[in-house]
């Protein structure tokens, strides 16, 4: 028994069984047996799976349809993302407040200007 995907404990036999069901791409194997769905997102098993497909279907590795690479690059906690997003939201809020203040001031000066005009 050879382990192919360490995150999800997927063996070579399971990958071969998925190929026998008609899978020809790394993404299909991932969806059927979960190889590459763990915390490392296929960093270890992607190439191994490609090699097994290549061997079973007698196709060069270069011709195997590549999987999609998606963010994040490594596991990131919500808190960390929120820390960054919180700053951004805060900055946006301040900018909006400033803009509102400016607009209010403008409105006041316009009003007084209009009043002054009447008086004259």
């Amino acid at each position: 028994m050879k382990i192919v995907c360490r995150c999800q404990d997927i063996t070579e036999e399971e990958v071969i069984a998925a190929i026998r069901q008609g899978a020809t791409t790394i993404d299909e194997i991932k969806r059927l047996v979960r190889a590459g769905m763990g915390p490392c997102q296929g960093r270890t098993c992607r190439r191994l799976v490609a090699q097994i497909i290549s061997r079973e279907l007698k196709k060069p590795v270069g011709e195997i349809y590549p999987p999609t690479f998606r963010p994040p690059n490594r596991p990131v906690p919500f808190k960390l993302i929120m820390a960054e997003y919180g700053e951004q939201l805060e900055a946006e809020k301040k900018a909006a407040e400033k803009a509102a203040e400016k607009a209010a001031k403008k409105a006041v000066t316009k009003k007084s200007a209009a009043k002054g005009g009447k008086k004259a």
Partner: protein
Amino acid sequence: MKTSFDAIIIGGGILGVSTAYELAKAGMKNICVIERRYLASGSTGRCGGGFRQQWSTEANTRLAIRSVRRLEHIEEELGYKTEFFQGGYLILSHSAEETAQFEKNVAMQRRLGLDVKIVDRADAKKINPYLDVNQIECATWCPTDGHISPFLLTQAYANAARRLGAEIHLWTNVTGLMKKSNVFFVMTDKGITYETPILFNCAGSFSRTIGQMLNVEIPVDPYRHEILVTEPVEKLWNPMIIDFGIGLYARQEHSGGVVMGMGDPNEPVGTFVGSSMHFMFEMSRRFTLLFPKLGNLRIVRQWAGLYEMTADAQPVLGPVDEVENFYQANGFSGHGLMLAPAVSELLAEQVLKGKPSLPIDDLHVRRFRGKKEFHREKSVV
């Protein structure tokens, strides 16, 4: 290679393969599914995987109840493990307005025979201990809703259809359609032209394009919906949580990862399925707002898929007036997986017997012709 079939289905998503299976099961021979890439490579393979019966329109609720009854026995019927799990659906309300709508929905759903009820904060806390119930007013709870693996269900249907003699041609893109004296000619990028008297359009986000090839207007527009999954952790909760107010759904899958997605009203029409940083930020904000204790959970992957939206967020189903024997099963507006078991069965009945056992006339594409205002399904994230 055989190129002449009794029925051809365009699209190898859940609708395509389940329709192929139902037709074959009802005794039809010579069925072919044509798929652009591989099985479930479109919307099906990117979806959240939930199935629910809590809808705001009667048509959707009826279909969904029937679908879940089918799903309860689908593993035995198809002989394949699908990670089917009835963990329930908890739908959260934030305002008196929303609660009033939910009360209406629950009354209608109960009239149709569904076991569903409104629960208060304390009960919601029991159902999901991680939820910050101070955020909500109440929730609706249906214990027979749940979730399933979209890939495994698609594969299960595909394997069963193949056993019954159906063919599935992958990596074949339909480039043109023509109808001449009751025969459809399906042209593909492989250079092969298929022939069939009956054609199904299960092309999901590309249904409009397929319709245009026969000069039939199918009003289905694709919108990107993003989704992410966390690292696997021990069991947190059973149900799918939906929040229309904040715009979020979250479920813990069989292997332990929490899958969550959200709706973005600013998303433009298009078939782009790339990832965005905005989604990562916004999803984190919404999730930690509802589940403040889970801030240390780590995200491992984000991806995106397409909702094939119609103007009333209900599917386009059945024949069309313009072209005879051209059947539609598309425009599911993000809910194809959960409706497919019922819809495919009804469609097979419509084609082979002329009359489905549950009327689907309300979902005929003619409802969109020359109309601008629709009674829209409200329960959509």
